[in-house]
């Protein structure tokens, strides 16, 4: 396997512009002879599809939801970063680049991250022109808010629904091209395989989720925008149908999977209330601006929180991190919540929660002020928990939120399979070992609007792409594989449901491949995952048939892939004998308990090659060295 990042030479500030000058173009007459498939219609997919269609390519889009507008990008709350410097606070492309690369704990490519920062400003222009209603000042100009990991105000927002508004903008641009006849949109269709012909990605296999039929589609290039894999943990803030299947099937066809162990865990979510729990709800981390995090000092203290006197409360973040206190970064806050609950100090019925207390803020600023700041979040909390956070502390706990790892791509966002491009959360590209807030929307749209349209064109112009037909052998073989797997799942007729298996897998992952990891824990996780995977294929019970709408069959096929990915995540975490960003290995911490990087030995991207699954996952590590020419590597400290 050859992994060439294809980073253009020259000064950081000139790389992308130079590359654009060198990129080969396809003439308008020829564009209409080419077809591009886009899988997934979130921010990356919808924006890529619209932009490619505007250029004149024939585009087919596929999504599992009943409308392209429902992709999980819709749930992003906070905002989108851009280096506009509208606040005159000294922001610049360089500063956004630097914050992002530092926030990622120096585990991403300088060239990609710089381009992301450059594109950020165009995204805001594009979205405003589409009619995205961003928050505005009285003068009618755009407003900004602050977000973690930055000392400038650069986040654009649409109340708490920025993802929704940006996605609707991209979806509408896409629907305009559907109207123009340049996009054919397939909804309720799931990609089950990639078709590779003569070493190039030339099509996909899908299942029509309504009729159950397996279908074949050919193309000159395939753009995968299928999101992250946080649902491997079963419980996460991801939408219920978010999954790794399309990406994993590409991995099995030869695409390298990069940095699978980098998972972001968000510190302020509403805790689990029982076994029936199906997902976790995130609350903005802005709550930590005024809330104080604590647990009882005595683990046997079962009193109502309001009855626990001040001196018997353990404000562990304030004690351990006197200068940042409750405002430490996401990974530090999450890790400490796990540490205190592991010590038995957790609160609530399950013991898997800590308090976030607004009592002092209410006494200081008054209930009305707190209501004005957080009213909607308090209402949401009350709706879910039936508790009143104005009168007693909230209970919060960390939850899986975003995955930085994904399919390996080069500077053109192309995987190591020629013709397979990967954009948005599905690739590993820009966030290193930790993503900063308000950067996911930025990356999805940068990839989709401003990178993919050029780089896909360059590929089509450069490559020999002889005609392929869905009647070719490679298509028939891949379609048969997909059908066989579904039939096999249905034929087991065991005694445990898919959800039961998924929940068990999630527990292993959360306990041992979650907030903190250890050699011992990871080794036992690998064994447990293998054993449970065997059990799954012997004992899973999938209802109904493949010939009609059958959501539990969809789940079964996705969970089968999660079982394989889970092992790869543990292997990757075990291989990375250092701590960096969200990846904390218990063995590698500073004396103060901070993540201890090992730049000498681990300043590389782990790109894994799939070799097979036979009881255990056979996989091979390839390394892409990260060379830092423009920034100096530093240890993070929040003491």
């Amino acid at each position, binding site marked *: 396997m050859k992994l060439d990042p294809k980073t253009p030479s020259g000064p950081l500030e000139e790389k992308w512009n130079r590359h654009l000058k060198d990129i080969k173009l396809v003439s308008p007459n020829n564009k209409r002879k080419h077809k591009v498939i886009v899988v997934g219609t979130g921010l990356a997919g919808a*924006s890529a599809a*619209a*932009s490619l269609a*505007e250029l004149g390519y024939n585009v087919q889009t596929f999504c599992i*939801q*009943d*409308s*392209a*507008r*429902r992709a*999980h990008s*819709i*749930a992003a709350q906070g905002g989108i970063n851009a280096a506009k410097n509208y606040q005159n606070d000294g922001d610049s492309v360089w500063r956004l680049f630097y914050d992002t690369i530092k926030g990622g704990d120096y585990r991403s490519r300088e060239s990609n991250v710089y381009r992301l920062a450059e594109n950020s400003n165009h995204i805001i*222009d594009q*979205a*405003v*022109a*589409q*009619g995205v*209603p*961003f928050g*505005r*000042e009285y*003068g*009618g*100009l*755009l407003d900004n808010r602050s977000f973690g990991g930055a000392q400038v105000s650069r986040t654009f927002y649409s*109340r708490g629904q920025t993802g*929704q*508004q940006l996605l*609707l903008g991209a*979806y*509408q*641009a896409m*629907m*305009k091209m*559907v*109207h123009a006849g340049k996009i054919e*949109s397939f*909804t309720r269709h799931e990609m089950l395989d990639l078709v590779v012909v003569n070493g190039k990605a030339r099509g996909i296999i899908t299942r029509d989720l*309504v009729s159950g039929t397996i279908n074949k589609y050919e193309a000159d290039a395939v753009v995968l925008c299928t999101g992250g894999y946080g649902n491997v943990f079963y419980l996460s803030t991801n*939408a*219920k*149908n978010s999954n790794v299947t399309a990406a994993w099937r590409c991995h099995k066809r030869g695409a390298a999977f990069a940095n699978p162990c980098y998972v972001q865990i968000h510190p302020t979510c509403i805790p689990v209330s*029982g076994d*029936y729990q*199906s*997902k976790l*709800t995130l609350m903005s981390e802005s709550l930590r601006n005024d809330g104080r995090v604590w647990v009882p000092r005595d683990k046997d203290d079962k009193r109502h929180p309001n009855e626990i006197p001040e001196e018997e409360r353990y404000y562990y973040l304030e004690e351990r991190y006197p200068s940042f206190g409750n405002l430490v970064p996401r990974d530090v806050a999450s890790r400490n919540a796990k540490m205190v609950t592991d010590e038995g100090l957790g609160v609530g019925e399950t013991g898997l929660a800590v308090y976030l207390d607004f009592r002092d803020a209410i006494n200081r600023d008054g209930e009305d002020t707190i209501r004005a700041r957080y009213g909607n979040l308090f209402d949401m909390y009350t709706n*879910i*928990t*039936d508790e009143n956070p104005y009168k007693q502390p909230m209970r919060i706990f960390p939850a899986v939120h975003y995955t930085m790892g994904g399919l390996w791509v080069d500077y053109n966002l192309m995987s190591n399979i020629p013709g397979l491009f990967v954009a948005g959360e599905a690739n590993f590209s820009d966030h290193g070992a930790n993503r900063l807030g308000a950067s996911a929307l930025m990356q999805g749209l940068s990839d989709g*609007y*401003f990178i993919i349209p050029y780089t896909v064109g360059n590929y089509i112009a450069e490559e020999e792409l002889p005609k392929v037909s869905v009647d070719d052998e490679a298509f028939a073989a891949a379609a048969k594989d997909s059908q066989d797997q579904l039939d096999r799942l249905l034929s087991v007729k065991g005694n445990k449901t898919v959800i039961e298996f998924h929940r068990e897998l999630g527990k292993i992952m959360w306990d041992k491949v979650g907030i903190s990891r250890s050699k011992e824990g990871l080794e036992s996780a690998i064994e447990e995952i293998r054993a449970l995977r065997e059990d799954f294929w012997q004992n899973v019970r999938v*209802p*109904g048939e493949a010939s*009609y*709408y059958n*959501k*539990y069959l969809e789940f079964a096929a996705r969970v089968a892939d999660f079982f394989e990915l889970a092992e790869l995540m543990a292997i990757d975490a075990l291989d990375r004998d250092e701590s960096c960003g969200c990846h904390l290995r218990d063995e590698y911490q500073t004396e103060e308990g901070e993540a201890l990087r090992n730049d000498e030995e681990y300043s590389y991207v782990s790109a894994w090659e799939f070799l097979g699954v036979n009881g255990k996952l056979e996989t091979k590590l390839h390394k892409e060295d990260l060379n830092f020419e423009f920034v100096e590597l530093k240890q993070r400290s929040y003491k």
Partner: protein
Amino acid sequence: MSTMTINLKVWRQKNQNAQGSFQDYTLSDVSEHMSFLEMLDVLNEQLIKEDKDPVEFDYDCREGICGSCNMVINGRAHGPKRLTAACQLHMRNYSDGDTIVIEPPRAAAFPVIKDLVVDRSAFDRIIEAGGYVSVKTGAAPEANLIPVEQHTSNVAFDYATCIGCGACVAACPNSSASLFTGAKLAHLNSLPQGQPERKLRTLAMVEQMEKEGFGDCSNYAECEAVCPVGISIAAIAEMRKDYVKASFS
């Protein structure tokens, strides 16, 4: 933790052409902390274990934003709580021994796919007809060259917040999609960016809405009452005004 026994009457229908009917189920040990959809998950786990077909229903984000869920609960789209999507409804709103009737949103333009799952692609085709501002990628001017009065921007946002769930159609005695269509028109037509295409957009979207088989609006305002994000019926008035203006110019 208190638990309840809940009786369910759920609409079961194999496919678009099959005859559907209500089936009765009883669930014991329903926790008050469960969400409504988690209660249905538990029912499905029980049905799978009994070798029966689980109930199909649409959902994704379970945070009230994606608009996938849209079932009709005891005759009301999204159930009893105002400004709350079915996925955000919790079982503490019910009592031990309650009977809950669950059915799909019923409209000719939303054919049933299976059980509670319906085909809402008519909404996509209404957007396709004109629910956008035509601006190619890369053609946008600097963002702050288009100032928008804060109030106008807020009003546009209030309409743009529509999640496209279709509760408005389910609740309307005429199965009208006027609130959905009006909300998108009011969002784009109120902004300076939306002015050049205002007339064409209004005509195209309203005509597409009629073509899809949705009924007309006769001001019942049932749509506004069930909308989980509180879209105001003023959207429909705006749509009518714009439609009349566009028709006579």
